[in-house]
């Protein structure tokens, strides 16, 4: 199992999970690393959860079982918490801290978890938690929609994935809209810096 890296990305529909996954896919191709991924889409437009699984290395499976993720990246804090079933004690977790409460909270059918408690719980159960306010960093990069690239930057900083920041930047140039390339790369850098020292 050691030459395989298993990454789960969870996000709310519209946060750009699938674009981030496709950038990583391209980066892996450039780096010559085998990569398979799977997605559950269909509910992305309707505010549901989008989960993607990326398996780097010589594995055939395209999905990741509970307890077997090496890295979990959550674009939304309650979704990061919800995806803990994919983690084990060695998993590294990266999460955005800006909440997007589901409408069930607004209609009184659920209580949004306390963000400080959420971080405590995740830290206690996994190897490491990198928590950042990806929305602020995305705005600083020039567009709140670059939250996905901020979190990709943090992910690259951990060094866990067998792809480099350069591979990812080249992939951003080929896979994202020309008008947004500079912002996306700035967002990646900001996420990278924010993750160091956590």
């Amino acid at each position: 199992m050691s030459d395989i890296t298993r990454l789960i990305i969870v996000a709310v529909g519209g946060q750009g999970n699938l674009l981030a996954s496709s950038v990583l896919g391209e980066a892996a191709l450039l780096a010559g690393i085998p990569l398979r991924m799977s997605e559950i889409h269909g509910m992305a437009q309707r505010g549901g959860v989008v989960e993607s699984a990326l398996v780097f290395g010589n594995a055939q499976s395209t999905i990741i079982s509970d307890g077997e993720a090496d890295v979990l990246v959550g674009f939304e804090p309650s979704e990061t918490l919800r995806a803990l079933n994919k983690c084990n004690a060695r998993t590294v977790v990266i999460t955005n801290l800006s909440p997007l409460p589901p409408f069930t909270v607004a209609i009184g059918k659920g209580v949004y978890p306390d963000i400080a408690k959420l971080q405590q719980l995740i830290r206690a159960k996994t190897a490491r938690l990198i928590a950042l306010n990806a929305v602020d960093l995305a705005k600083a990069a020039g567009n709140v929609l670059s939250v996905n690239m901020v979190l990709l930057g943090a992910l690259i900083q951990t060094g866990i994935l067998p792809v480099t920041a350069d591979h990812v930047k080249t992939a951003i140039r080929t896979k994202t809209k020309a008008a947004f390339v500079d912002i996306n790369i700035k967002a990646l850098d900001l996420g990278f810096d924010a993750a160091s020292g956590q």
Partner: protein
Amino acid sequence: MHKLLTDQPGATMVLLGNEAIARGAIEAGVAVATTYPGTPSSEISLNFFQISQESSLYFEYSTNEKVSLEVAAATANSGVRSMCVMKHVGLNVAADALMTLAYVGVKGGLVILTADDPFMFSSQNEQDNRYYGKLSGLAILEPSSVEEAKNMIPYAFELSEALQEPVIFRTTTRINHSTAPVTLGAIRERVCKGDFVKDPFNYVTVPAVSRKLHVKLLANLDKAAERSEVSPYNFISGSGTWGIICNGVSFAYLSDAIRDLGIQDKVKLLRIGFSHPMPQKMIKGFLGSCEKVLVVEEGEPYMEEAVKAFAQEAGLTLPINGKGKDLFSRLYEFNPRMVRQVVAAYFGVPCKLEPMVDLSNIPKIPQRPPNLCAGCSHRATFYAVKKAAEGLSTIYPTDIGCYTLGFLPPLGMGDFLICMGSSAGTSCGFSKVTDKKVVSFIGDSTFFHSGIPGLVNAVFNNHNFTFVILDNGITAMTGHQPNPGVDMGLMNLQGYGQISIEAVVRALGVPHVAVIQPYKVKKSIETLREAFNFKGVSVVIAQEMCTLYAKGFKKTKSRAYYVSDKCRNHRDCISQLACPAFFLDAEKVKIDPVMCAGCAVCAQICPENAILPVKA
């Protein structure tokens, strides 16, 4: 140029399974492709649709899967390579055509793709369509990976032409929606025009003709069996006396499991990719060299039952197991850890499993179910129906589309759903034997697909219910595909007809017909109440373009609304509409101006008139 038309054999591209399948069809020189949209197959058709606009490929979104197969049956019998794409339940709709098309056969290759959905990620059941092979007598091919899916398509066309029969190509969601690098092949020249040669005593399936054709089908099935025995898609890897037989994505999970458990020299793995007819001789030979065999297949024990029968024929009594306690379930999908555990337990090898984190002290996390979009016209229609039906005891048969989501709280608009178009037929039944007011819902695409016969039945057999047709001008749930009611001019496409749902309803002789604009709440409620009071069949057509689809055409965004200081916190808006643009800020309701579509429905229901348009 569309990326899937890239003419660079040997180049590598990272593709979604569905893209790989579409590319495989291009490499096979497919000339006609037909479909009715259905997840997880929808991206195959989307790519065909795009490619057809810049090449000689003919592609159409047909009214339903039966029609799509009939179109392809004709083109294939005119010698043109054709492909028909659908989700698994779609094959039920096409089954009438399929069963007798198997007798008639084809001249040009015909590949029928069924995208099965174990775990029902986006379907009403998880039926195992491998049984259609047995039922129809047609060959079935099943890939185990994205790259294999692409490579198998040209093989499927060759097989179809060799047998002169359609071939069923079966995928599951984890193939359709996985992504992997794929190596491109050469593109075969496309031949778009064919010819139909008269031969009525082989084409018109009256009993005397069919009796003959059935003999031909069985002979073709024997030919298929011979090919299955030598197909490169049925292969054995590994060595040892422990045997595993598998298909589809299980092959991927097993490859990893065998390596992780370190049993490569103890286990022989037989991967079946040409799964009907099963390669009998190959399997009997495989069984003969094993001390015990595990069958690993998602869904039904389709292979397990066949393998057990082969063992009996070969006089073998080794243990063969697949489904059961401590083995595999018929439910849902598999995953790598589950497969590793069962394999380890079955063959008695140690299996180290990394413990999952302890979730017992995690607070309850609020659910995030999919919701109708902000500004969705269905939300407005459902609200109006709810208000108009106050005081009535109701039953709400519903149907398949975005509006199905309306059955969730707080709207609660949906009581019964079994299949496409079932809203119409079930309304007839409920209203006949109960005293409740029956109000049913159907979308525009579903209406054309299979709602019309139910409505005809209601008029002919004089039933009593209100049929609400939610016409948002597009097939929305599956990703905004065209249907016969859609204005194709908005997509800058010419040469299409457009059928008026209102005209069809009136032509059927429905005695009470009304049209509402759902964003006009008060008028909609009045019109619906009138319809509910009518004794007999009444139809109300709610016309408003899908808000998400409309966003693509609007030059400027509609004005958003905001909650003013007049708000007295009644919470009618949130509790009755639950629009996702609402959020709570310090216990007060606010509207996210980016999400707000400006439909103003909340503004019309606020008892304080506190919701106002944002000033320009």
